[in-house]
């Protein structure tokens, strides 16, 4: 499958699991999308470690250094899987995977060239000594434990947004 088709498939499947995916052409577009997403109040946890994270332009006063104080986490994730519409988060490069489960809204930036087509492509190319934690995230936190009624946002984020750059 061509790269464009893989991106398209990822966006379709991520939309099916309420992960609000959007494709942007450049960091300028990314910032205008981010501005819309974080319109409401709330602190933002952002590490500014990767190229994409460094390109994020946001009001400085809203950025906090502890994810426990944040309503939003904005981070560049390690990749994505088109087959399932999942994003890949790991503990590589000193990242705290828990920073994407505690805030009420998780905003993930996915580099378009890090999207795997299938689960086999991802699990088939695994490092011999994996990082401590690798988590696939497929949509927001959900439960159906009361009468099998779907309820979004039990322990983890109520909302997930994905920006493909």
């Amino acid at each position, binding site marked *: 499958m061509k790269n464009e088709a893989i991106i398209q498939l990822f966006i379709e499947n991520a939309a099916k699991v309420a992960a609000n995916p959007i494709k942007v052409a450049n960091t300028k577009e990314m910032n205008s999308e981010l501005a819309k997403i974080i319109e409401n109040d709330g602190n933002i946890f952002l590490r500014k470690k990767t190229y994409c994270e460094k390109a994020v332009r946001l009001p400085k006063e809203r950025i906090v250094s502890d994810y426990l104080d944040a309503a939003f986490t904005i981070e560049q994730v390690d990749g994505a899987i088109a087959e399932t519409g999942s994003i890949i988060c790991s503990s590589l490069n000193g990242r705290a995977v828990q920073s994407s489960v505690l805030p009420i809204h998780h905003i993930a930036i996915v580099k378009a060239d890090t999207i795997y087509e299938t689960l086999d492509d991802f699990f*088939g190319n695994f490092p011999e000594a994996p990082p401590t934690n690798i988590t696939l995230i497929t949509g927001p936190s959900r439960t*159906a434990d009361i009468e099998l009624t779907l309820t979004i946002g039990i322990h983890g984020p109520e909302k997930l947004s994905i920006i493909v750059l």
Partner: protein
Amino acid sequence: MNRVSKAVSFRSNTVKALNDPSLRAAMRHATSTFGKKRADGIGDNPFEEWREKASEIRMNVLKNLEQYVDMFAQNATKAGSIVHRAKDSHTACDIVASVLRDHRVDKVVKSKSMITEEIHLNSYLEQSGIKVVETDLGEYIIQIAGETPSHIIAPAIHKSRQQVGQLFCDKLGCEYSDDPTILTKIARSVLRQEFLTAPAGISGSNFAIAETGSISLVTNEGNGRMVTTLPPLHVAVTSIEKILPKVSDLALFLRLLPRSATGQVLSSYFSLITGARKAGESSGAHQLHIVLLDNGRAEISKGEFKEILKCVRCGACMNICPVYGLIGGHAYDSTYPGPMGVILSSLLDGLDRTHPLLDASTLCGACSDVCPVKVPLAKLINQLRQKKVELGLASMLETIGMTGFGIAVEHPRLFEFLQRAANRVWPLAGFIDAKVSDRLPRPVASSFKRRVS
């Protein structure tokens, strides 16, 4: 094995369940919803091909179980986990309790784990003075209600929203609501505090990966992620048969498990955890203990019922079972209900306790058809019924009846005589008990043999 001699009072449990209209309604709703979701999830995917392959992988693990367990233990240790082996429930509980005591832990947060239900870990820890907080919403509901799970993936499936609302109102002192969204929010805020303050977390593991020594969790709520990343100490309890040889096997099993369980393409969260936090990392517990529980499984893997150990605990067999759908999980009075539960419980607890549960099957075979790893559930239940008879555990009436029938079919004249007699006596049956005459098929007026000869 945890041999308990007293047999499960399955018949009276069943009568009680059948006379509980609220349970009946909950079960009707649950099994039909689950069934539809699974069908949608399977869709036009090559399910047969997937389950064939998955079954093969699981069988290979079971055939070489000892080697895989050793490989897993070695690689987990290499990755920085502390591995413990437990031959039975008591040893496993004791290991967990002593790890927690060593760290002076007085409270643990737990994510959903059937293995810890099997070994009754919560009551063991509570007796050791350690507070246990279940954090999966369903598990939390039944914990504060003082009950046990009635389904392996939806533990509080037997409760209505009104019952949960009343329970929260009574136990948490909040205002009554029967809106699942509001109740979920209440649980979120209560449990968030527990996550942030607990010094230790306990989890199970859906799959353990031999080549990397990793454990893994498939969840929807996010509590599993919190339990395994927020507290400084993490104890994972898993049974030895849950091993998959390679990381690449996960692709197939992640296609099968969520679809079979909830119909999802993938659950919200899948975490693969390999060892404790390493230098330079900000994720993971500082210490990870893995308790590998045998509890009779090594023995089962060598015997005629080994295929039950292929089970990945999706719950599809209970969702489709006509018996489970009527009576719910509590009537089985065992850790694991439904078709897989009848078999596994019999092997873990012994037939002298579980033999009445073998009646909880119509042998329709629907469970075998939906099983994502092709466990021949109906066949195994039938084999266990034979065992039950061999062990002399069948009821006297059944034994007399079957012996009589055996004699009759071996003697055609006797058979014909009895058939004619049955026809004569039949009208009287209504006088004795309408229940009997309504349910029994009417004897045929003339036998097939007579009609063709």
